[in-house]
């Protein structure tokens, strides 16, 4: 959301929508992994919560253009991915971290991130500097020349994040990005998310409600392929008032919305 104020005129609000879906579905045989999702998301960090099997990963894969939807409409960064030119333009401005990061064990951190910088068509003369910057942003400077097979799970997760942000994406899709990160790294990562979210759209799928509370401006809760709640973390918290399940206010809100949706 961008708000422009010109002198004494009332605030003029122009909304940038980077993700727009209508009735989006994705079916695997008879199972509806995504069952009619309507979203309008602008710049900022958007959290996607939900229990296992809710459809979060499938929704992210569709938004990442890995999977085509079974039906429904979708516009990303103002383009439709249905045609090849639109898809290519979207992918140039997209960053994606899948739930499971596949990697080349013999590549160094730098080589791995550089590989995707080149595949994302970052110009060759700028690619190396972009790679170094991405590696610095995820605090892997001291391991830039280390082989990937020598890294811990948390470090590999940060390598995955580095490849996702190497092209300064306008749409960043992260599936369980904090899995394997220690508490200190998670705090740093949330700070990175907020920084990227100042000008880009970041969609984070996670199980950890504290990540949502700390980093996200808006949050959606998925259940059985549908969005059953969308609002701010504060609004989600308020749904948990008087609900007893959950240790933290946001957890109680999460549990309360899920219980109501299931009922």
């Amino acid at each position, binding site marked *: 959301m961008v708000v422009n104020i010109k002198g004494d005129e009332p605030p003029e609000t122009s909304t940038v929508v980077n993700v727009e879906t209508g009735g989006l579905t994705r079916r695997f045989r008879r199972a509806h992994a995504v069952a009619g999702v309507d979203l309008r998301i602008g710049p900022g960090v958007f959290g996607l919560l939900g229990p296992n099997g809710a459809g979060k990963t499938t929704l992210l894969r569709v938004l*990442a*253009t*890995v*999977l*085509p*939807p*079974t*039906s*429904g*409409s*979708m516009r990303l960064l103002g383009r*439709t*991915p*249905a045609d*090849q030119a639109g*898809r*290519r*333009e979207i*992918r*140039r401005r*997209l960053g*994606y971290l*899948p739930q*499971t*990061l*596949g*990697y*080349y*064990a013999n590549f*160094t951190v*730098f*080589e791995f991130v*550089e*590989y*995707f910088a*080149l*595949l*994302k*068509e970052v110009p*060759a003369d700028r*690619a*190396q*500097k972009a*790679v*170094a*910057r991405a*590696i*610095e942003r995820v605090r892997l*400077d001291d391991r*830039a*020349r280390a082989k990937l097979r020598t890294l811990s799970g948390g470090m590999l997760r940060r390598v995955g994040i580095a*490849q996702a942000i190497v092209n300064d994406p306008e749409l960043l899709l992260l599936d369980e990005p904090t899995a394997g990160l220690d508490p200190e790294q998670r705090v740093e990562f949330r700070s990175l998310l907020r920084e990227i979210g100042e000008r880009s759209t970041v969609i984070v799928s996670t199980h950890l409600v504290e990540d949502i509370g700390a980093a996200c401006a808006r949050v959606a809760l998925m259940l059985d392929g549908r969005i059953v709640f969308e609002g701010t973390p504060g609004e989600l918290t308020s749904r948990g008032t008087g609900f007893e399940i959950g240790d933290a206010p946001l957890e109680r809100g999460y549990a309360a919305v899920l219980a109501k949706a299931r009922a």
Partner: protein
Amino acid sequence: MHDHASDPARGLDCTACRRDLETTPIDVDLSGIWTGVMSQVWAGRPGRTELVARRVLRSAGLARALVTTPSLLLSWLVASVVVLAAGVVVSLSIDTPLIPLLAPGLAGAGIAYAYGPGTDPAYEIARTMPISDRMVLLVRALAVFGLNALLGIVASVAAPMAGGVALAWLVPMTAVSALALAAATVSGSANVGVTLGLAGWCIAVLGGRITGGHMDTAASSQQLVLPYLIFAACCVGIVLRASRFPNHRRQRWS
């Protein structure tokens, strides 16, 4: 950084360079300069093959994708050379041409392992790249086929048949490679591609032995050239259909 611009790592130890950094005006983006220096320290130089590929393909990304092809790695090439060398030795000792039988099978296996889920570890991320995975598949498959054809030709020259060097096996090699590629692409499994490619080739060889009386009938018969080419074209059509996006009529964008 004086004459250390080409070697930033040395520049970091150079007194003059460090003094320059200390006296640099504060409005200079030191962080950006540092990142630039570190990028040169960390980056490796692309190999000759990759540099040539960049020129030919006119894409640095596609060139990097090509040189990371699993079935073009050194270990795979060594294995292919060993198999063909053994084929040459045995062919010479028993006076029976084995290279026309081995080369198509090797090429089929190599192509099945060129690209795809389960073969390429970063396949999921690669599918979100502006350089389409179909283009990566095409470039890798052509490179693997070309290299295997070259190795097979060298082996054929080393073990010529009675009538001289015959290269008729290049046609069945095309068909076996196309079958392996189609099976791997449709099933999403390199193992399925190899299995079907080799099984198809074994059936063709045994069928040729029964009908033609020779082990190499399937590799050398002129009558089979057209059927092989039609079969290969059908397989390529299947690959193109399976690798398009969206890949199913019901999966539509609107």
